[in-house]
């Protein structure tokens, strides 16, 4: 059986992509406008702003937060967020006692409906391989130094369950509105390689 890897001369990847697109489009197997829609969806509509809304609501609405921790998929669907790579969502809460951080060592599974497509660091072999072996060292290298007595829990996404981190609400934000809080929440905090700062 021939494989994509059997070619001896490497073709530049952008050219290779263009060649495959041409082959499929000219036979009517792929519609380039459908491709444009997929791309635009993840460039413009589905990204970490979704997750930030979930976090801000959880910080300001204790009943929502409880539902979120009990049934992540259901609570997140209340806000209208669902779709590919979000079939079943489990939300884990960071505190000063426990810090959660998420990885997918086998590929780069990521909760698309809440965070969009994964960033480069999440897909980096150094992150994938090392964060399940020496998370404190990896987090330090990425700029997050945790107190010694904070326990670390690493979640390696290996089934279709997707894990989402509810970061700690920063102090000094007691008077912030939900919208103001959402603006503070970063993608990296919702994976667990950063904390939210006011």
């Amino acid at each position, binding site marked *: 059986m021939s494989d994509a*890897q059997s070619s001896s001369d490497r073709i530049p990847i952008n050219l290779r992509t263009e060649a495959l697109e041409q082959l499929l489009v000219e036979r009517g197997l792929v519609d380039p406008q459908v491709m444009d829609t997929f791309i635009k969806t993840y460039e413009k509509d589905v990204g970490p702003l979704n997750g930030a809304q979930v976090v801000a609501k959880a910080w300001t609405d204790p009943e929502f937060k409880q539902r979120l921790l009990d049934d992540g998929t259901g609570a997140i669907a209340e806000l209208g967020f669902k779709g590919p790579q979000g079939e079943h969502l489990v939300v884990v809460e960071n505190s000063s006692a426990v810090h959660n951080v998420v990885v997918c060592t086998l590929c780069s599974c990521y909760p698309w409906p809440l965070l969009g497509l994964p960033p*480069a660091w999440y897909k980096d072999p150094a992150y994938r*391989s090392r964060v399940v072996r020496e998370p404190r060292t990896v987090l330090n290298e990425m700029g997050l130094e945790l107190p010694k007595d904070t326990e670390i*829990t690493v979640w390696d996404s290996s089934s*279709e369950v997707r894990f989402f981190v509810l970061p700690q609400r920063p102090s000094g934000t007691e008077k912030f509105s939900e919208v103001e809080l959402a603006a503070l929440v970063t993608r990296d905090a919702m994976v667990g390689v950063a904390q939210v700062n006011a």
Partner: protein
Amino acid sequence: MTEIQPASGVADMGGDSGWGRAPIIDPDEAVFPEKWEGRAFALALLSMRLSGSNLDAFRHAMNRLDREHYIDDGYYGRWLYGAENLLLDSAIIAPGAVEARAANIAGDHVDEPPAPEATKPDYAPTAAGSIREIDAPRKFTVGQRVRAKTMNAPGHTRLQKYTQGHVGTVTIAEPAQVLPDTHAHFIAENAQWVYTVSFDSRELFQENAENFTLNTDLYEDYLEAAS
């Protein structure tokens, strides 16, 4: 049709050393830093449908790649090569077709192979997605000690090598899901219970490892009771 091709082993990198320092975060990174990456992303999603395949087969199509093809063109590079593998498997495109077209785009004049007769897998999902309702009772319960089996899967698996042979505790009873090991090869959905299992880092690695808890999802077939 269901010829099982082995994974190269590159993808199963959890616990490996040798990949260097942790990456630097770029908070302003574009979703698709280069235009081809968006095209490759969309082509791969469409290729799964075109080839009559599924998400597990797509993951395995990437896991079959050698180190160079898995790593050197990055994440969407392996998506593109994986998509090509699916399209070749189902004879949607002919071997050599992409290479010939690329050469012609670059100004060459080479013959291109004709489009072959498609041979899609004899497979249809019983429902959308990967989660299934099943009647079977759960074999394991929250709090139970379990061991991740040592399995040497001939083809696809989601059982990482770094968990194999180690004992942990069931912490979450997850929904039943199709088993990637058989689903990727169109043998059966084999829907079964999944468990989030917690491992002590010093059980997985050596005694002097950093102290932390590792949670990961393991399918019922991957587990056995441990005392």
